[in-house]
């Protein structure tokens, strides 16, 4: 099988010894079909065991291994070496504090997920004994692709609004709220709306669509945000301009 030497520049930072991050150069023999994660694993195994990054599934579903690769947010298990020429620059995800090397501090994202109440708030509670809620394939399709988010945070690293306004709930959290709002079994939209509509960021979002472009799972958070904004505007109109029709 074909092997070639691949050059990587990897950001290194250990808060216990480094004043600031720096780049370290590695040269590692790689197989043609490898992804960037395989190259990092080869470095860790045979060249430098002190390099740190998160990964687990190697099949683009656990969402652990997001990083900036040549300046773009990517899953390193899905960034094929054949797509790169020259030195590959690897950095931690943008817009998050660096914990160590390629590991970022994810607290802010995790908090935001929780704030949007991302769970079913039943419209009509139903005992288990009564069986499943009926949901037609068409009803399922309304929200299904918004439920595919693997929480990889790539969209936050791409989002210009999150960079400016860290309080912004951000693409994935809002999409998740929207996913439950669209679920025929759910009746919690109003509760979630209180969180989302008061969020500064939604209104500032300029819909450049960077989030959807980088999303590895075709979740299309930009579309979710757009729909949320339209729906929120309609709410506002109903409440403020058309009092008679509020019911």
């Amino acid at each position: 099988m074909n092997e070639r030497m691949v050059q990587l520049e990897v950001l290194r930072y250990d808060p216990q010894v480094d004043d600031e991050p720096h780049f370290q150069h590695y040269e590692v023999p790689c197989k043609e079909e490898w992804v960037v994660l395989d190259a990092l694993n080869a470095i860790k195994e045979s060249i430098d065991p002190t390099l740190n990054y998160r990964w687990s599934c190697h099949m683009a579903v656990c969402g652990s291994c997001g990083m900036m690769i040549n300046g773009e947010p990517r899953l390193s298990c899905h960034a094929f070496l054949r797509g790169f020429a020259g030195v590959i620059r690897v950095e931690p995800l943008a817009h998050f504090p660096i914990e160590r090397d390629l590991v970022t501090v994810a607290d802010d994202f995790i908090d935001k997920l929780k704030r949007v109440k991302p769970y079913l708030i039943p419209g009509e509670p139903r005992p288990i004994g009564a069986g499943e809620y009926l949901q037609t394939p068409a009803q399922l399709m309304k929200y299904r692709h918004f439920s595919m988010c693997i929480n990889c945070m790539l969209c936050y690293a791409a989002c210009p609004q999150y960079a400016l306004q860290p309080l912004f709930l951000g693409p994935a959290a809002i999409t998740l709220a929207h996913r439950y709002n669209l679920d025929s079994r759910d009746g919690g939209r109003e509760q979630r709306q209180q969180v989302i509509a008061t969020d500064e960021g939604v209104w500032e979002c300029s819909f450049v669509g960077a989030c959807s472009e980088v999303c590895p799972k075709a979740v299309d958070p930009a579309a979710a945000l757009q729909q949320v904004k339209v729906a929120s505007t309609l709410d506002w109109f109903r409440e403020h301009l058309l009092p008679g029709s509020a019911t």
Partner: protein
Amino acid sequence: METIVADVAIVGAGGAGLRAAIALAEADPKLRIALISKVYPMRSHTCAAEGGAAGVIKPGDSLDMHFDDTVSGGDWLSDQDCVEYFVKEAPGELLQLEHWGCPWNREADGSVAVRSFGGMKKQRTWFAADKSGFHILHTLFQTSLRFPSIVRFDEYYVLDLLLDEGRCRGLTAMEMRSGLIRQFNAGAVIVAGGGAGRMFPFTTNGAIKTGDGMALAYRAGVPLKDMEFVQYHPTGLPNTGSLLTEACRGEGGVLLNRNGRRYLQDYGMGPETEPGKPQLKTMELGPRDRLSQAYWHELQKGNTVSTRWGECVLLDMRHLGERKINERLPLVRELAISYLGVDIVTDPVPVRPVVHYMMGGIATDTRAATPLPGLFAAGECACVSLNGANRLGSNSLVELLVFGKRAAGSAIEYIRDLPAAGTAALTARAQESQARIRELFSRTDGIESMSGLRREMTDTMEKNVGIYRDQAGLQQAVDTLGQLRRRYRKVMLSDRSNVFNTDLFQVLELGCMLDCAEALTVGALARRESRGAHQRLDWAKRDDDHYLRHSMVHYRGSGAPRVDYQDVVITRSPPGLRDYSGGHQ
């Protein structure tokens, strides 16, 4: 050392750990629950499960049939009281997930859809496209956010269990961000640490599946049960080991050898069925152990296809058509295209068996209790004896739910009248645990490298403890693993930082895997028969007279482990013949 006090501490936030946490929180909002995981919950390997989860729901199916499939699939090594409990609880648990929002696939009338799965006589596998585990995990994680009493400790690595006067009373864990060790005092501990496939070089298991949970319990004196039963999944991608779900065959995909022959018919699973019209419990829908063994025989006969990734057979799904493939198997198509460059719509995809699942694990009973008071276990790390000698696909996701919940119930019962713990004793144990880590950091005479030892372990497992085994190979593996465990005491850390030190965690994980691998191999050497996933070339027959029993491997520190046996519980199905001939035999 900071001490955190909880009523119940849970190790692991995958499907089993999350289900247990929610059950505890629902039962009593005042319970203090500590949910501890070395990765954020949604990174747990449950996310990788593709195919689905089995539970009887459709007319024409019955709990008895699910029972029979599970018991015969497990080659009669399942405890039948456990299977009875499981099949009864399964549908309710899957419905519960539905009520929590899980996006199960639907029939046109809005009811839940089910699909075919290997070894199951009826269609009873609930699925969410081919991302079932992902949706189950996220549904559970998101639902858990409703409960303020579930306090999460994300990215905490659990080091040791704390015992006092014969009870499990807590644990120690390292906050990965700071390197600080915390003591958790808890009335009860539930271990839900997942599997251990990383003992092998070629596996569908993610990097985190290193048997930590099993090793925690084993070192605390709980036996590991039936460890020799390792499931090979017959259809892994030959380069990365990524899984192509059994649903590929459930939807009608067929397996071909180099001559284009559907070779399964030559191994007691024929006659051939029409392509695209799969028949339950025969040919491609036979059980995993049989399919993986058939590959091995084809390899010996020179019937496999040589590819740049090694010897393979072909999984052909072309006849399903692009539409069905996109609707039912989108992830499979995506995986094969991106990692292998093969589009399943236009070409057959090369596959080979890959280490997938541990049937064995921490010895538990149907209450999810271990023999150690105060310690419970659920999920893949546990061996509750549902799966016997071979797990049926789509039983495991349900096992997480049924026994995660059961562990919670048993823990609540247990802590009700629990006498107070001797806190001084626990603190002393915690300090010993901390000293173990300190010693690793301050070690100056280390000569062994983590990656070197790990490679020797995985090579040994692959070479000697694979699909077919024999006395000589197993003996060699036992010897090598014993040596590796001794050499491990001289392993040297390369990284001494306190902040997110993955070198340290890999060293600790390796220690866990070595202990598990030794237990597995000792169990395999002692079992002189062939049953389910444990196949001996030198003992080719099932031997119910001697081995209708669970092997129990006991930890003995630096010495070799000790094996004894426990009877299988038979309630109504005496050992019989496993028939996958589609009724033709």
